[in-house]
């Protein structure tokens, strides 16, 4: 057999029928739904009188508009939000699928709980009516976001009619410097190759720097494949993947586990396999990245200044608009920008390792006066694990709100938001206009950068903090005077 890419293996092992002209009927192993876009698919399916092909492989969570305040119930800050929750609950019950409901101890953001419960598995096809489904490719799955109508198709038939993407391998080579993370790798890729750079491609992330990443960091990297306009992003499973999955709630056990691992070890791109396109990025000198504008492609190293039109690589119209929206001037150092809010959460960066790294920075320190800081764990399991380690106390003592899990303020749905023209440093995935609230100015960064920025009250890297930035001697002028 000729050398095959991992994507070719994932595709051909799920191909029920070749529909011609590059379209395949693909078997779907796992379907995940949430209350925002899954509810309408379940409702539409019920109205059509069709049954689910296999309810045992369908899961649903409440993450998008559920409140994240302690003691939450079905009521939401989002006007009309309650109807999405109650209708989803009823539809899930009727369909006989597993729902991670508002008070379920396993509730959380779909792309956080699917891996942590072992629902996504290497070599599986996973779909969800959510653009960040590509996150789950980090375990070696073919996972991609779809619309509600396609979700209904998957529910009814156990398959989808899929246009076969071309293959792109992105190799991150070299050794990631201390303080630089998977989030920075994703932002650097999109900044260098544009927000349409991955359009039409299934992206395999590979290379020494990817192999070095732990599974949670790999989830962060794959999460942003959709911001690259890729169909999906994924990483070949390895010993870290198997160690991560072993013993998880829905993962296979005993003999079935042994059988599965033998199969999973074959899920690699063969030596000599050819890709339609290849990108190589050396991460050896990669700095923490922060976005200045209104697209993830507007990411620059934290040491940089707001770019000129020529440096920005965007059209003059888009550039001027982004600059005006963000309230910025050319040449302003990112580090001089004062922030009013800091957010740690979302399917990009809300897992235990993210919270641990942020907590390490926050420990013994306090957020700058006037900064509103919020931490929203990605799942109730993450929250419990963090609390068992005392991370919640570190966040609270630093002045962060400590919330129940959900998508929360990653996006504005009509309820909670950051204010107009407020500058927010955020561990999320989208800095689009009004994404986190009407006219809110979002800067994307890693959890480390968000934590450090919250402490200093301006965009800052962890290395900018000194021992002076403590609870007792908070003096911003001294820090600013120190250069940073």
């Amino acid at each position, binding site marked *: 057999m000729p050398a095959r890419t991992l994507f070719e293996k994932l595709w051909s092992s799920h191909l029920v029928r070749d529909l011609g002209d590059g*379209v395949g009927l693909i078997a779907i192993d796992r379907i995940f739904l949430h209350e925002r876009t899954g509810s309408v698919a379940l*409702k539409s399916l019920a109205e059509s009188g*069709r049954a689910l092909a296999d309810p*045992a492989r369908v899961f649903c969570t409440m993450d998008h508009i559920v409140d994240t305040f302690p003691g939450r119930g079905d009521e939401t800050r989002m006007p009309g939000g309650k109807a999405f929750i109650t209708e989803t609950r009823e539809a899930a019950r009727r369909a006989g699928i597993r729902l991670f409901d508002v008070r379920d101890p396993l509730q959380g953001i779909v792309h956080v709980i699917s891996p942590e419960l072992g629902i996504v598995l290497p070599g599986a096809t996973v779909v969800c009516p959510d653009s960040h489904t590509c996150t789950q490719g980090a375990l070696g799955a073919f996972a991609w976001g779809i619309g509600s109508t396609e979700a209904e198709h998957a529910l009814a038939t156990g398959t989808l009619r899929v246009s076969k993407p071309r293959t792109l391998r992105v190799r991150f080579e070299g050794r990631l410097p201390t303080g630089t993370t998977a989030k920075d790798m994703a932002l650097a890729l999109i900044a260098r190759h544009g927000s349409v750079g991955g359009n039409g491609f299934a992206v395999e992330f590979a290379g020494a720097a990817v192999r070095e990443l732990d599974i949670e960091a790999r989830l962060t990297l794959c999460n942003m494949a959709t911001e690259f306009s890729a169909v999906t992003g994924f990483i070949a499973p390895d010993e870290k993947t198997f160690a991560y999955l072993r013993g998880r709630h829905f993962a296979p056990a005993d003999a079935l586990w042994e059988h599965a691992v033998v199969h999973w070890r074959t899920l690699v791109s063969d030596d000599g396999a050819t890709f339609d396109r290849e990108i190589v990025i050396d991460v050896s000198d990669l700095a923490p990245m922060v976005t200045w504008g209104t697209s993830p492609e507007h990411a620059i190293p934290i040491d940089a200044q707001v770019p000129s039109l020529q440096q920005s690589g965007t059209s003059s119209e888009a550039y001027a608009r982004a600059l005006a929206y963000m309230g910025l001037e050319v040449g302003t150092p990112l580090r001089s920008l004062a922030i009013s809010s800091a957010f740690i959460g979302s399917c990009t960066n809300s897992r235990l390792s993210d919270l641990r790294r942020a907590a390490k920075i926050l420990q013994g320190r306090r957020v700058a006066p006037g900064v509103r800081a919020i931490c929203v764990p990605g799942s109730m399991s993450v929250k419990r694990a963090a609390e068992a380690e005392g991370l919640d106390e570190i966040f609270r003592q630093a002045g962060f709100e400590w919330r129940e899990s959900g998508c929360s303020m990653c996006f504005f749905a009509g309820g909670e938001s950051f204010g107009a023209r407020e500058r927010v440093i955020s561990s999320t995935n989208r800095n689009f206009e009004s994404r986190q609230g009407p006219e809110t100015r979002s800067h994307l960064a890693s959890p480390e950068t968000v934590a450090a920025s919250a402490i200093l009250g301006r965009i800052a890297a962890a290395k900018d903090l000194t021992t002076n930035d403590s609870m007792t001697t908070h003096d911003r002028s001294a820090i600013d005077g120190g250069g940073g």
Partner: protein
Amino acid sequence: MDPVRVLTAVAAPIIRANVDTDIIIPSREMKSVSKTGLAAGLFAGWRYTAIGGRDPNPEFVLNQASYADTRILLGGENFGCGSSREHAVWALHEYGIRAVIAPSFAPIFFGNCVRNGIVPVVLPAAAIAALAAVVQADPQAHRLTVDLERCEVRAATLQAHPFRIEVEARDMLLEGLDAIDLTLKNRAEIEAFLAHDQALRPWIYLETNRR
């Protein structure tokens, strides 16, 4: 789904890169578990003067009398990026849009268009700029034709711009096909695949998800 074959209509240029689905329909405008009642929220952030309000912003192209009865949009790179919400396409359709012409589309948005009777046409940015220039001179008189039978876009004074669209997507749109009906015709093949696959990958097939 209504078939789309040859559409001649007013086209409106919204040529901006990365027009995301939250711009097409802000999340706050998705007020119920429904595919309908969304047209009023289409482009709400641009179309109205205030958040949640309904006073038309005269600057916005679709509010201008010369663009009355717009059925075609001319867009920029990465049209429909961001959230997977199909509500963006449902809102466009309910408003009356039947074709969007852009240099590139976000993949989920593209699929949602095909499933809902909106033709997503990929043309080079230069061709779209040329079409926009013709349209803008007199939008009501210079209507565009999106011809899915011949796979070309025509404007009165320009050469036809050919485009390529996959056979499957084209057939769906031309015939107004329901993809589920189509797939269920392959039910026997699906069942045979599953029987074979279950022997190969038994761990995928959960007996229950009630653990």
